């Protein structure tokens, strides 16, 4: 496998060499996706050939499969376009709970874009984050799109960029959009210091996607094209609801799906915030583990609230306080947003209000 990849790289190198003398640039000749599994990684996104040259940047190349998640992470209302590619003849191994076991060479691409704020305008593509399964593990590579929107450049530490967004009331909102640096990518993607994808789990992929050749369930489609082995039929695979579609699941299930994808990457065993003692993973049903009547103990300023989660009392729950805040020291997630997710907050608030029990009388006494 790795030999095949090296060969491919060598071929590309030769192609580059001849292209260089003819055109002064490389990447014009080969049309297949090129996987890089070790440093140095390409400086330009176009060198991966994930998207068809000369077309809109988001038209996937041969073998690049778009995908979507039932409930995604909130990122300042950015639209996200996700793609997966695997080396020919390889496939991911299905897993019921965690992320799939992807082969070396896998490329997961996620592009962040903001729709035009006026009718004549164009969608603004800001960044494409690649998560590449390299020889020694997953590597996070943030590519930042140029102003001309023709290509993106690898920037391990990118500058923040101003984007605009049309709010619900029609006003145009300016956002200081922070592109995470590659260490910050790890902050969310690490589990026990191993970088891993977060989104492509069975429960999150188990939905239909409108492929060019017709709508199909993603698990079935990945299996059909050879990207997934060992998956059961879609209706016997786990599935989380879409957080914002009431018909897709109960209020509780949708909230748990939201917390699973917005909080659990850190707040779970092995995650960056394991030490907090709360676990937002979808796969347990212990309210206490979600922070019910639990004092945070070592979390610093918590808005004057005592417990992580107070059943029946959203206003006294630190969970909601942190979701609503946009201050660096208070907000959760700590990185990846500069706005509060109004609709997500509303969902969690509604669910908290339905819970019964409260935390009893708040007793405070001296040590």
């Amino acid at each position: 496998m790795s030999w095949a990849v090296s060969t491919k790289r060598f071929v590309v190198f030769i192609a580059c060499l001849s292209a260089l003398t003819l055109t002064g640039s490389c990447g014009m000749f080969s049309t297949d996706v090129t996987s890089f599994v070790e440093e140095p990684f390409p400086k330009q996104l176009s060198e991966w050939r994930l998207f068809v040259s000369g077309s809109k940047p988001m038209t996937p190349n041969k073998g690049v499969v778009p995908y979507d998640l039932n409930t995604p992470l909130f990122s300042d209302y950015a639209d996200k376009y996700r793609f997966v590619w695997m080396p020919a003849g390889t496939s991911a191994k299905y897993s019921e709970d965690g992320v799939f076991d992807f082969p070396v060479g896998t490329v997961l691409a996620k592009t962040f874009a903001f729709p035009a704020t006026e009718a004549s305008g164009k969608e603004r593509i800001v960044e494409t984050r690649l998560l590449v399964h390299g020889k020694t593990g997953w590597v996070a590579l943030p590519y930042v799109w140029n102003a001309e929107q023709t290509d993106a450049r690898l920037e391990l530490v990118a500058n923040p960029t101003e984007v605009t967004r049309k709010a619900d009331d029609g006003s145009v909102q300016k956002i200081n959009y922070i592109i995470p640096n590659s260490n910050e990518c790890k902050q969310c993607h690490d589990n026990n210091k191993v970088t891993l994808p977060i989104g492509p789990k069975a429960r999150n992929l188990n939905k239909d996607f409108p492929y060019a050749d017709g709508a199909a369930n993603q698990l079935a489609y990945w299996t059909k094209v050879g990207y997934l082995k060992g998956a059961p039929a879609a209706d016997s695979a786990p599935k989380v609801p879409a957080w914002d579609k009431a018909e897709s699941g109960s209020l509780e299930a949708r909230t748990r799906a939201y917390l699973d994808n917005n909080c659990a990457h850190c707040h779970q065993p092995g995650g960056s915030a394991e030490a907090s003692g709360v676990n937002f993973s979808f796969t347990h049903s212990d309210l206490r583990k979600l922070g019910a009547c639990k004092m945070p103990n070592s979390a610093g300023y918590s808005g004057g609230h005592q417990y992580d989660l107070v059943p029946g009392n959203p206003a006294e729950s630190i969970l909601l306080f942190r979701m609503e805040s946009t201050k660096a020291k208070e907000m959760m997630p700590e990185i990846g947003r500069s706005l509060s997710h109004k609709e997500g907050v509303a969902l969690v608030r509604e669910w908290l209000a339905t819970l019964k029990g409260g935390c009893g009388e708040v007793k405070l006494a001296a040590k």
Partner: protein
Amino acid sequence: MKPKSLVLSALILASTFALNSCSAPTGEAALSSSLSPAEFQKALQEKLIAAKSGSVIELPEGRFQFDKTLSLTANGVTIRGKGMAKTVLAFKGQTAGSAGMLVKANDFTIEDVAIEDAAGDGLKTEGSTNVTIRRVRVEWTAALNEKNGPYGIYPVTSKNVLIEDSFVKGAADAGFYLGQSENAIMRRNRAEGNVAGFEVENCKNVDVYENTATNNSGGILVFNLPDLPVQGGEKVRVYNNQVVGNNAPNVAPKSQTVYNLPSGLGVSVMAIKNVEVFNNTIKDNNTANMHIISYLAMSQEIKDKTYNPFVSNVYVHDNQFGGSGKNPDARLESVLAVAKAVGQPMPDILYDGMVEPGATDAKICLQNNGEVTFANFDAANQFKKVSRDAKKHQCTLPALTAITLPQDGTKSMTSAAGGGK
């Protein structure tokens, strides 16, 4: 000849190309004080990302402004400034990330640097093994208030941690906070003007020595709390420290755990076993120089079944006490209740008298502490049988073992008087 030179020039072209386009050189910009704040922030973060085992990142003299967390994940890296008065990483107005510096890497050393006004914690290491923090100053320049960052130097879930010759001021929760960690030494540090000076929370095998805690609300706190994944903290030695005049108002809001720390507490030993406190000077702390208590005094319902709220096997010997309890913290009702029961000034050592049911060898031993005053305030029976008699506690416990760290050449002392007299 000609074909050969063609090949040669192609190779030269190719290598030029490789340098200019196919690789992504980062971390190469010099960290010069002539860079703009944005450039310096970017250059330093790039260096931290590009760092490999053995890398030494030298920070120049100067004051450098950051608006987001600096982070390190590469193992084996040293960050070195020009001194904690000379190289200042300033985070006032930080807009992104909580910590000033966030480290998740093994074999990490940071020395001779200051971190000021981080939005959240100053320097946090998480899940890291072999951490050395030397001559680092973390400070909030505003007067102590609840909006300062919570923790100054904060290793959590870390192992083999050495913190020495460092300084923290202004932390809204704890200056030095060792949490859920094991095998650690904190020595020759100074904490002043924090809510808690030093905290050892849910940790195992820790030596705290030759530190100074002054003008905090509380000096040195050794304890276990429920609802944290790492439980069973024990084996902590606190010796040769100066814990004097920790009477700063506790500014924490009522909702926070640390609110329950009385202002004017020197040394706190709570809900932990196997603690040795010796050769310290513990003076002029206005609630009490020391207390030894269970977590039950917190009146919190304990839902964490893995948590043991009792305190046992605490050996307090050869300390110098004086000037305790002249002005107990009137903010806390329970402090007032204890003060009423035992009288003022409060004695040097307060003990709540709670013993784990069924525990046969649970001991609190007080030896050779000079003219120490003592009270068991009988918390279990609402202060009915307050006892000032320390004779019951004339016992000894085996000395705890000195902590050794792989990165530390010097030998720490063993307790000469421990287990003896």
